[in-house]
């Protein structure tokens, strides 16, 4: 039996028993959706459909439908790609890194955070795919024998590293998620007083893979989870490092910096935790999980946001310092232009939302308020989108020849595809919230006696 210091706040409120946890986790699956769910779902679905139409238009007419030009040849597509990949990182951090550190608070949120990872990476993957212009030839990025004179992919290219990194990340995340889901699907299958239709029962029985909860199976389950966490931890750091190398291995002033890998990984965790908070603060209300996703969980996440936000701020300042200290005037101009050039407003949004506003979390009253956290998490989401926009567009729009200098403005297709992925993401997440066990209940039951409020009060 694990013991825990009494002064630690409980992670499960309201005198729950094991059976209560089962009932609470099964409720959203067995019950009917409420009004708010339908409103949110309809809105997301509409956005998603709009996005699909914009993608169809892009594929039909070509990438010229976007606001790109010869100078700014990467803009919203890669901004959105990096943004979504970054959002995914918090899910893996919560489920893998916090597992290695034996953080108990991860158990109430890891399932949803991982779902967010998978859905986020799906959105990210869409952008390189449609940017190819001819997505039906996407298989050309794979190292497969072919008849084009045996024309292989180039293993020196960071874009190919990306292909391997993203596909490994997505597939390993799905496996990690599913291994944990099997016992919880079995719980839904075995519910006696369930109001599920026979069809649904059969579906959950199918998904549960015949799980029985034998002692040997649990022993293997724990070992497999631990090893997967150990594999996912360097994986998650590698993915965003490799994404940053798309830029860092180039020769563009403003991109060619060795600080990029750690700076991108920190930014990814920072934005990912913000998105976890945005989602969970809504979800705990909509599916009544207030007893499990508590203010303590939110506070822990806010501390991580404060830490990573401050580190990201340090990275911004380091970049400015290194540009000055390098003595390279092109490098110096790139950063001066970022902060004071025509895109100064994007830089100002980035600095405000990523460096200044997260500092408010030093105040306990703000750190432990759902409303303040929700608002600040939206700020971070916006700020981190602008960070990628600033890095990409402001570095490109001043080309090597001043005659090529230009500005970028998105077309409604650019905006439509971006909003479409937000719609797609929320559509997937809302469907998940009604059909999946949104809390890893089997794992959560293991901490009930050490971190449940009833058991804490008994001591």
């Amino acid at each position, binding site marked *: 039996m694990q013991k825990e210091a009494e002064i630690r706040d409980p992670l499960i409120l309201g005198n729950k028993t094991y059976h209560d946890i089962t009932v609470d986790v099964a409720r959203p699956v067995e019950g009917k959706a409420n009004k708010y769910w339908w409103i949110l779902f309809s809105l997301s679905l509409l956005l998603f459909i709009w996005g699909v139409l914009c993608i169809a238009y892009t594929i039909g007419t070509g990438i010229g439908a976007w606001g790109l030009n010869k100078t700014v040849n990467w803009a919203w597509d890669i901004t959105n790609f990096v943004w979504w990949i970054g959002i995914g990182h918090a899910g893996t951090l919560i489920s893998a890194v916090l597992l290695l550190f034996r953080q108990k608070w991860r158990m109430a949120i890891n399932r949803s955070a991982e779902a967010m990872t998978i859905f986020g990476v799906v959105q990210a993957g869409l952008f390189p795919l449609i940017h190819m212009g001819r997505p039906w030839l996407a298989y050309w990025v794979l190292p497969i024998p072919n008849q084009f004179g045996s024309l292989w992919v180039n293993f020196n290219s960071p874009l190919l590293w990306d292909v391997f990194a993203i596909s490994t990340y997505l597939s*390993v995340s799905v496996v990690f998620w599913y291994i944990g889901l099997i016992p919880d699907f079995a719980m839904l*299958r075995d519910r006696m007083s369930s109001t599920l239709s026979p069809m649904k029962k059969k579906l959950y029985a199918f998904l549960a*893979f015949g799980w029985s909860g034998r002692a*040997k199976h*649990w022993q293997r389950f*724990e070992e497999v989870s631990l*090893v997967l966490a150990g594999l996912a931890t360097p994986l998650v750091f590698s993915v965003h490092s490799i994404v940053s190398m798309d830029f860092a291995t180039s020769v563009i002033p403003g991109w060619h910096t060795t600080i990029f890998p750690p700076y991108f990984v920190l930014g990814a965790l920072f934005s990912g935790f913000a998105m976890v908070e945005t989602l969970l603060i809504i979800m705990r209300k909509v599916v009544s999980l207030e007893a499990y996703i508590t203010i303590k969980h939110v506070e822990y996440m806010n501390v991580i946001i404060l830490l990573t936000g401050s580190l990201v701020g340090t990275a911004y300042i380091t970049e400015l310092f290194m540009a000055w200290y390098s003595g390279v005037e092109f490098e110096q101009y790139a950063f001066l232009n970022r902060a004071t050039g025509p895109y100064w407003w994007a830089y100002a949004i980035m600095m405000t939302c990523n460096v200044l506003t997260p500092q408010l979390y030093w105040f306990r009253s703000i750190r432990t308020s759902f409303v303040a956290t929700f608002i600040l998490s939206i700020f971070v989401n916006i700020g981190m989108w602008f960070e990628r926009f600033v890095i990409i567009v402001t570095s490109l729009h001043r080309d090597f020849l001043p005659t090529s200098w230009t500005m970028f403005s998105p077309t409604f297709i650019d905006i439509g595809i971006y909003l479409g992925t937000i719609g797609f993401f929320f559509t997937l997440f809302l469907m998940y919230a009604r059909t999946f066990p949104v809390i890893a209940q089997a794992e959560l*039951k293991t901490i009930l006696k050490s971190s449940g409020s009833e058991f804490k009060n008994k001591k």
Partner: protein
Amino acid sequence: MSTKTLHGIFDDEEILLSSVKEIRANKIEIKEVYSPFPIHGLDKALGIKETRMAITAFIYGCVGLSLGALMIYNIMIIDWPQNIGGKPNFTFYHNLPAFVPVLFECTVMFAAHLMSITYLIRCGLFPGSSEKNPDPRTTDDKFLMEIEVDGDISKVKEILAKTGALEINEKDD
């Protein structure tokens, strides 16, 4: 004499754990324990050997690394060496730094997927398999101990009841 199967049902993992120890101290073999969540120390109490899942992951990782290296060597060095951005492409080890990311991803991909598949196969888990737990409550809040007894079951029943089983069901085989 016929073999009988006894199912002792508990509602607390600590009581179950002490019961397991008591029963094994009485030289009675426990066939299986079903529980809704992993119980710390149960595998040792039951005398279950350590799992070798982590070792398989290491082996699969080595396989992934070797296959990845073989693939890159064949593609970049043997089949069609090209000068790309001045990077040395005529020996594997000179070009190795550029291959590290893909080699790493290959290692992780093989280790994670093949270990998970091994886990599913070793536990007999596959899509659509029917449930094998004798009581549906064992995925909710009950813990079930299964004991096969030849002959006199009253003694086993007595120990089960004494050590805290809430229900004891017997089944003829």
